[in-house]
């Protein structure tokens, strides 16, 4: 097979090249020719095509994402901002944490187990490459209809893959989301988040500095994974008998990744590394061009030194392979031997594949012949940028006009009682233990809170108890009704969840899952969501530190609901002060914090009971969210709260049931004055939480709320002895007194059955 070298490219300017098959537009191809002053070699074409793809270049989203930087609130906490593999946040006492969420949606639809598994693997390597030890993972997931046969294929596979990889890697899974909606039927969303910690002085960046320094590729061998499209370079154009189309699915090896973590932390700890980069999308193309572009600007690579799993791979394929569990490090010549020795200790294959130069050029040789000579910035950072047309969706006015006020509401106490059971049993609200019990939440011994708590909480410093809490959220029905408000509500919910457990919200990551950016209506949704999130972060004082964009999520021509998943990270000085979800102690008072309005459009109730989506989502008040968070954090720190739970999907009804079920303790409840019982139970007004206050703290706590003008309504008392009053001896019950003097009694056993049996009933 003939090798397409730089010399050959110069000599044959008119050779036709399959740029369109590789996803490049004619003008993009033309620009590459202008940059190089000649046609690209097939290897260069491979690199540009993959690095200029939407996924790697952010060409449609860049102009919008800028707002995250421009509107970023001043924050001392931000040590490394947007643009690196992951942002880094100061959490005090010399500790820094890094966290990020990424999507692996399409691979997980094709091969659920491996797609989800490699999604976890990829995000974990992002965290390692900052110099951090990974501490925990989370998995925000979205699937189609729960009873659809394809969901029965996809969901168990995705869950097994996330568990299979994360469990074997030894990272606790401390939270996530599981949402069902028809809009995800042909395009489930598998997002994965990882958080890691390090001391400030251990932060590492992806840059290749120091002329003469060596570039070491280490980890798994390179195979033909994830390069489906590139094979055209080898087969159609340059050699008809070339390799068959390679599979686009990658298989993960969590054991190798575990070795890679330990090995990487050991070489970093020994001070052997100048720059480091993980290999993810676009593999060696991405790692070498980014390292060079961020560093002294030049690099030379001997591509034939890359250890291969499959000797028939062409250089184009090697450049683009997305084989998992590989890393790249820049090491001074004096440290190479020590670096390789540590790799050997961990049974990790490592090879010097290149060298930092000052040529300003990334040059790559294949058996002595030059196949790439490009300015690395043009590959990594100066890709095309599009200002795509956007248009408010045509049907949006009608959708917003069709609000939930016209839906019939439960009228009698019996109807209300049944509706609570039905909502609690709805797949989106139901107990997720069938899924989360497949995840190790204890490994590493620092898990303070994990699912189903409002946020996952990890102790970072064993000596002082300093820790972090993380929550991810997004109600995409709200985002569909109003993407600006929907993104803000997603942020507000995650922010509130973190504060609910007692941590101070500090920083934000996001994974923006949308339809096709070439559809103006999707682009409008995207722009609105980004603007909403950036504004919210500015007002709440929490900067965005990083994230990920996933476009082209649709079933046929129908885009998914806009799904801007937001992750908020908070810090807690001593995890011993954390506020759990369960109430335990008889006589403690139950308060509802915040204002409850008649806000049922887009609610879980409208979705479950009426299959309805329309109207406007609940109002957002970020000032109120801040005050609420302050109260929740102060209440936790000063021992005024024994339990807390944020109010979101399914409203107060769901919050109360979950709190009661957690430790199987009942309560006596009443509807606050002036509120309609149905609205009290099912409204999804934002800015609210249910808290439990010990008797001795009630005065102090209510005074604190009053001083901050935060409404606090006493709505009940924890009571484990109600069963007898209700004629159900020895049973735990929730009893709700209605304004008319009637009351509703729910045995917790019934609620548990309703809440618990849904997922096992569906999946197994």
């Amino acid at each position, binding site marked *: 097979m003939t090798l397409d070298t730089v010399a050959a490219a110069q000599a044959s300017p008119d050779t036709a090249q399959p740029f369109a098959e590789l996803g490049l537009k004619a003008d993009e191809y033309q620009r590459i020719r202008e940059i190089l002053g000649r046609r690209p070699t097939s290897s260069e074409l491979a690199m540009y095509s993959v690095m200029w793809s939407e996924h790697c270049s952010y060409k449609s989203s860049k102009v919008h994402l800028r707002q995250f930087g421009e509107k970023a609130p001043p924050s001392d906490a931000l040590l490394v901002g947007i643009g690196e593999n992951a942002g880094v946040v100061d959490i005090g006492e010399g500790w820094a944490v890094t966290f990020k969420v990424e999507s692996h949606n399409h691979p997980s639809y094709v091969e659920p187990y491996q797609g989800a598994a490699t999604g976890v693997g990829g995000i974990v390597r992002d965290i390692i490459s900052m110099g951090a030890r990974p501490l925990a993972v989370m998995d925000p997931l979205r699937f189609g209809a729960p009873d659809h046969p394809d969901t029965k294929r996809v969901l168990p596979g995705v869950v*097994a893959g996330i*568990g*299979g990889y994360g*469990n*074997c*890697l*030894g990272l606790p899974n401390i939270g996530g989301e599981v949402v069902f909606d028809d809009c995800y039927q042909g395009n489930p969303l598998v997002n994965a988040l990882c958080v890691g910690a390090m001391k400030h002085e251990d932060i590492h960046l992806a840059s290749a500095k120091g002329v003469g320094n060596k570039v070491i590729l280490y980890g798994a061998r390179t195979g033909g994974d994830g390069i489906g499209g590139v094979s055209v370079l080898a087969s159609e154009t340059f050699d008809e008998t070339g390799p068959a189309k390679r599979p686009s699915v990658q298989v993960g*090896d*969590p*054991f*190798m990744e*575990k*070795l890679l973590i330990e090995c990487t932390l050991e070489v970093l700890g020994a001070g052997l590394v100048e720059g480091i980069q993980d290999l993810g999308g676009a593999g060696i193309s991405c790692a070498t061009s980014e390292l060079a572009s961020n560093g002294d600007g030049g690099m030379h690579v001997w591509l034939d030194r890359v250890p291969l799993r499959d000797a028939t791979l062409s250089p184009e394929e090697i450049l683009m392979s997305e084989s998992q569990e590989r890393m790249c490090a820049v090491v001074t010549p004096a440290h190479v031997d020590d670096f390789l020795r540590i790799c050997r200790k*961990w*049974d990790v294959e490592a090879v010097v594949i290149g060298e930092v130069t000052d040529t300003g050029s990334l040059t790559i040789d294949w058996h002595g012949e030059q196949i790439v000579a490009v300015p690395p910035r043009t590959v990594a950072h100066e890709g095309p940028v599009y200002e795509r047309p956007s248009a408010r969706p045509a049907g949006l006015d009608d959708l917003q006009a069709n609000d939930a006020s016209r839906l019939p509401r439960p009228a009698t106490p019996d109807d209300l009682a049944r509706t609570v059971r039905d909502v609690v049993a709805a797949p989106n609200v139901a107990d997720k233990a069938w899924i*989360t*019990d*497949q*995840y*190790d*939440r*204890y*490994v*590493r*011994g*620092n*898990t*303070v809170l994990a699912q189903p708590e409002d946020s996952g909480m990890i*102790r970072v410093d*064993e000596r002082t108890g300093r820790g972090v809490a993380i929550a991810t959220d997004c109600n995409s029905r709200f985002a569909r009704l109003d993407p600006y408000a929907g993104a803000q509500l997603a942020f507000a919910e995650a922010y509130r969840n973190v504060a609910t457990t007692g941590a101070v919200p500090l920083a934000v990551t996001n994974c923006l899952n949308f339809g096709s950016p070439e559809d103006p209506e999707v682009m409008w949704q995207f722009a609105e969501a980004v603007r909403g999130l950036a504004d919210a972060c500015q007002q709440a004082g929490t900067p965005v530190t990083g994230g990920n964009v996933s476009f082209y999520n649709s079933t046929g021509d129908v885009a998914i609901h806009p799904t801007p998943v937001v992750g908020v990270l908070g810090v807690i000085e001593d*995890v*011993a002060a954390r506020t759990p979800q369960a109430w335990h102690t008889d006589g403690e008072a139950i308060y509802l914090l915040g204002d409850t309005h008649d806000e049922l459009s887009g609610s879980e109730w409208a979705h479950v009971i009426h299959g309805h989506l329309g109207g406007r989502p609940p109002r957002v008040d970020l000032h109120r969210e801040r005050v609420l968070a302050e109260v929740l954090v102060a209440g936790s720190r000063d021992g005024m709260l024994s339990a807390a739970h944020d109010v979101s999907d399914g409203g107060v009804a769901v919050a109360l049931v979950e709190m009661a079920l957690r430790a199987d303790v009942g309560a006596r409840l009443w509807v606050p004055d002036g509120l309609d019982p149905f609205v009290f139970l099912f409204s999804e007004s934002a800015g609210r939480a249910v808290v439990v206050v010990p008797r001795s703290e009630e005065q102090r706590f209510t005074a604190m709320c009053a001083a901050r003008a935060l409404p606090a309504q006493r709505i009940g008392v924890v009571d484990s002895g109600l069963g007898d009053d209700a004629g159900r001896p020895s049973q735990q019950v929730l009893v709700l007194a209605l304004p008319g003097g009637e009351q509703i009694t729910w045995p917790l056993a019934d609620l548990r059955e309703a809440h618990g049996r849904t997922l096992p009933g569906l999946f197994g």
Partner: protein
Amino acid sequence: MTKIGVITFPGSLDDGDVQRAVRVAGAEPVPLWHAATTIGEVDAVVVPGGFSYGDYLRCGAIARFAPIMADVVHHAGDGLPVLGICNGFQILCETHLLPGVLTRNESLHYVCRDQALTVERTDTAWTNEYETGDRIVIPVKHGEGRYVADDATLDWLEGEGLVVVRYADGNPNGSFRDIAGISNEAGNVVGLMPHPEHAVEDLTGTPGTDGLRFFTSALQSLVG
């Protein structure tokens, strides 16, 4: 101070947690590397949980041949207290220090949950601080924890009183006779699927500290 060795294989995960539990119990943890040929100067050894060598062939099948295991087997014969937890239990079965084998959970799913156990044998090096019949709650987290042995072996285990802990309130994996952990006849070698090291602090892991006495028992047996 009593020294308890904790082996790290490639793919061990709970080694750090066992070291913490050993410290909380008041002993000194000594990290041991799988490639070492001797365990050195330690008073007891824990083979921790995880996925040694990825557990790719069969749980524990490859770790069994690690150089250090020969020395562990040798000293176990001389009465060295050896505790295998989860993957460690699987490894001890593969080395034949303990009979039987751990197979895929009956549900075919990995399971992580807080699990009630009954302590049945309390004259071992690792359970002498419990009372017979104690009910404790510590977590299980495994995909292959279903204890399997032939009837003769099971009868023998029961007859000799070698079942150390049994699942209570539901069997998480389909283990024969609800067996969660067993010992050798001498009581110095114990293996169990649940993780006592994840129940030694109130704040983290399973609520409570029901697992701590596995580690304090070892101290007791070494002093006593």
